[in-house]
C-alpha cells in the first residue's frame, strides 16, 4: 500500500488516510500483523524476527537520548 504510492502522490495519499483513533489503531494493528505473520508466525522462525525489533528499539532509544549524548562529542566543530 504505502510502497505502491509514488513519491509525488505522497501528500494526497497522506490526506486520504484515516486519522481517527480507530483508524490509527487499525493501521498499527495491520502493521503489526504484517510483521508478525511474515517473520514470527512461521514454522522455522530465525533470529531475524526479534533481532530486527531489538535493533529498532536500540535506534529509537538512541534518537530519544541524542540531546544528552551531544555533550559527549570529542570535537566541537565537524
Amino acid at each position, binding site marked *: 500500500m504505502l510502497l505502491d504510492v509514488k513519491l509525488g502522490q505522497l501528500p494526497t495519499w497522506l490526506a486520504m488516510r484515516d486519522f481517527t483513533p480507530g483508524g490509527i489503531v487499525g493501521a498499527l494493528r495491520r502493521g503489526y500483523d504484517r510483521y508478525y505473520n511474515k517473520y514470527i508466525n512461521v514454522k522455522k522462525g530465525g533470529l*531475524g524476527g526479534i533481532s530486527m525489533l531489538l535493533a529498532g528499539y536500540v535506534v529509537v532509544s*538512541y534518537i530519544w537520548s541524542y540531546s544528552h549524548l551531544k555533550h559527549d562529542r570529542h570535537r566541537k566543530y*565537524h
Partner: protein
Amino acid sequence: ALSAPLLPSAPAALRSLPPPVAASVLHTTRQLHTTQQCLAPLPPLPEKGGEVRYGLIPEEFFQFLYPKTGVTGPYMLGTGLLLYLLSKEIYVVNHETVAAVCILSVIIYGVKKYGSAVAAFADKLNEEKVATALAVKNEAIKSLETAIEEEKKEQWRVEGCSYLFDAKRNNVAMLLETNYRERLLTVYNEVKKRLDYQVAMQNLKRQKEQDHMIQWVEKSVVQSITPQQQKESIAKCILDLKALSKSVQATV
C-alpha cells in the same frame, strides 16, 4: 494481548467445530477471513519467515537496490552512512560504544555456537505438539470411519429384516392353521360322540325289545305244551330213535 479481540470473532466458527479439531489449530491468532466462507481447513503456516541478512536487514532492501546499484550497492550505502554518522559525530563514540561492542560480540558468539542446537530443540517441541494433534485428528477420523462401517452393516441388516418377517409370518400362519385343524377335529369328535350315543341308544332299545319278545314267545310256547303232548312227543321220539337204530344196524 493484541490478538485477544480477534478471538471472539474468528474462532466462533472454530468453537462450533468438535473439540478434537479445535485443539489441532496451534496458532489461533492468524488473520482469518472475516466472511463465513473460508473457515476450515486453515492454510498451513509458511515454512520459513522472511529472509533477513546479517540478522538485521530484510532481504527485500537488497532486492530493492539491486536493479539500480547491483550487488554491492547496499554495502556501499551502509559504509557511507556509517562513515557519515561517525565523522559528523551523529553517532558519538563513548563508553557505551565499548559496552555495546562487548555485548554484541558475546551475543554473536553464543548464537553462532548454540543456535542450531536451540533451533533443533524448539523444532522437536513443535513436532511433538503437531504429532499429538495429528494423532487426535486421526483418532477422530478412524472412529468416524468405524461408525460409518457400523452404519452400513446396520443398513444391510435392515434389508435382511424382510426375510425375517416373512419367516415369522409363515410361522404364525402355520400356528393358526394347526389350531384351526385341531378345533375342527375336536368338533368332529364331539359330534361323532353324540351321534354314536344316539345310535347306541337305538340299538339298545331294539335289542331289548328283541330279547323281551323272544323270552315272551318262549315262555308262551313252553306254557302251551301240555303234559299230553309231552308224552306223545317223547313216544314219537323213541319210535324214531328205534327206526334210526335199525337203519344203522342194517348198514353196519
